């Protein structure tokens, strides 16, 4: 068994907008997720983090690049082996309203994956459904309800139970808390952390909420317009961000702390994220970057290790500009 459960090399996912234009949603990204860890993936909308997660699960076909799961290249998997991969890798979606089929009862939703992967008798199936409902903090009174009768937090628990039903080892959590209220967000994050501890799960946690990502992740990757700009342990990313984009992102988080607020240095980004359709060469962040020089507009920087376990893609990050 290798150190990494999921490994993607040079992963690209392009969408053809029309004959001439290409949307580069994910552009040469390397990701490696260790067994049992949580890798956080942050970035603003349109940065490709969701596409990246879905491509890793083979829900989208990668344009180029390789994805290894447990040492096996997944794009070559067929039939039984592909099914086995789906048994191992699952996803939890952002919108608890559109991710549950409105015509199915909660128990039918949870049973969907079990029917495919586990051959269970009806009695065993029922027991397992109740077990899963309890594991995610619901009771069996929900089993025969429809999704629209549940609150957002309860629906998200059902979404997690559906993923857990097939006993996966890897779960992509695609913005699982963004659509929920603050107090419910904490419930779901606690649930995810507890399940990880109990079942030894590996997570890819995608979110734009930096404080939650920091809280749940061991390592964090920051994406900007389809490329990974920084990857480091979650402490390092928040205490000593090296990429100018990461720095701006962190200083933009509104902190719910009255006294600390005024003392915190504010760094504001000018302008908005440009379109990911046919981006110009060079560093993607260069047009908004205050440190940008000629080389930034010409050449795309590579993601390089600047400190142990701290990778940055920036031409200038070695000159200490923070």
């Amino acid at each position, binding site marked *: 068994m290798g150190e990494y459960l999921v490994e993607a090399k040079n992963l690209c996912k392009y969408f053809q907008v029309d004959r001439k234009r290409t949307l580069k949603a994910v552009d040469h990204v390397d990701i490696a997720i260790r067994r049992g860890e949580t890798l956080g993936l942050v970035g603003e909308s349109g940065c490709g983090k969701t596409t990246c997660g879905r491509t890793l699960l083979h829900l989208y076909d990668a344009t180029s690049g390789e994805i290894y799961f447990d040492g096996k290249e997944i794009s070559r998997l067929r039939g039984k082996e592909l099914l086995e991969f789906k048994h191992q890798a699952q996803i939890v979606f952002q919108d608890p309203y559109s991710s549950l089929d409105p015509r199915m009862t909660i128990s039918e939703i949870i049973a969907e*994956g079990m029917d495919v992967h586990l051959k269970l008798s009806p009695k065993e199936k029922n027991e397992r459904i109740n077990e899963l409902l309890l594991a995610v903090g619901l009771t069996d009174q929900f089993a025969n309800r429809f999704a629209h*009768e549940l609150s957002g937090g309860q629906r998200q628990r059902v979404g997690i139970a559906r993923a857990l039903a097939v006993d996966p080892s890897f779960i992509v959590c695609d913005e699982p808390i963004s659509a929920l209220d603050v107090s419910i967000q904490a419930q779901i994050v606690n649930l995810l952390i507890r399940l990880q501890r109990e079942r030894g799960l590996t997570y890819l946690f995608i979110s734009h909420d930096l404080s939650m990502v920091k809280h749940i992740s061991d390592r964090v990757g920051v994406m900007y317009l389809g490329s990974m700009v920084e990857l480091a342990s979650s402490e390092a990313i928040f205490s000593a961000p090296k990429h100018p984009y990461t720095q701006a992102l962190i200083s933009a988080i509104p902190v719910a702390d009255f006294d600390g607020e005024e003392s915190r240095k504010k760094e504001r980004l000018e302008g908005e994220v440009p379109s990911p359709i046919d981006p110009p060469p060079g560093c993607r962040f260069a047009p908004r970057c205050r440190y940008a020089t000629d080389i930034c507009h010409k050449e795309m920087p590579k993601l390089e290790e600047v400190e142990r376990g701290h990778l940055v893609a920036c031409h200038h990050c070695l000159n200490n500009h923070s």
Partner: protein
Amino acid sequence: MQQIAKEKFHIIGIQEADTDVIARPHVSYWRDAWRRFRKNKLALTAFAILGVLVILCVFAPVFSPYEYETMDSSARLSGMTLQHPFGTDKLGRDIFTRVWIGGRVSLTIGLVGALVSAVIGCIYGGIAAYFGGMVDNIMMRIVEVLISVPYLIVVILMSVVLDSKSLGTMLLAMTITGWCGTARFVRAQMLQLKSAEYTLAAQALGVSPWKTVVRHFIPNTMGVIIVSVTFDIPGYIFSEAFLSYMNLGIQPPGTSWGVLVSSAQSQFQFYPNQLIFPALMIALTMLCFTLIGDGLRDALDPKDRK
């Protein structure tokens, strides 16, 4: 401040039983739809009227003392009398009986036509949407070609080629292009569902394409398809009436509402009763189906469920 017993101020904390109870009653989709439909008085009335019409079509000719094709030269061109509530035509046939017999034909054409085109349209549109890409492209171009052929030409060609003007020929002629609209509509619906997150979840779970269609796509499009079928029925009824009126439809001694209207029109100025009753039936049936369709749309549309 009021006096409150001291023991009321012991902290008891959270009692598990209190949290996460569902306050609202359990309502399934179809029951909820029925509840909304019931509230729509107009649709309900239309439903009742249609029910009466159907019952009359089925049973009235059975209990009527006259046969619909029996001519009675002694009672030609009778007005509305007790013996002949709707009068008789120029051959002395009882119009009351003929209207209900004609109703059988008209309603059959409406229902069967709409159902057949819904089934074909669903399968066709579903396949196009599911496979997407090139398949979808080619299939939809075919539909566009078919839609652009005027259906009158198709009907005339059919009756010439098959050399018959029976009920079956007419159904065939009308459904041969009639399903195209449904196919387009179903395709659009399915495309929407295809990008829904629960379809993606099913894909991630490794659910087979066939099961995804049966479990997710069909139940979720059922409501809108039912509505669309209901709205299609009056179209078929009217087409039949129109074709029969143009003498392209049912031939004597068979009858339908269209045939009745057509044969009554020459004596319209003297015997308006011959025209009014079948015309009224056509209008009433079409109106009822449209109103029911409206009611169903409001009842089945999941968008504004509360």
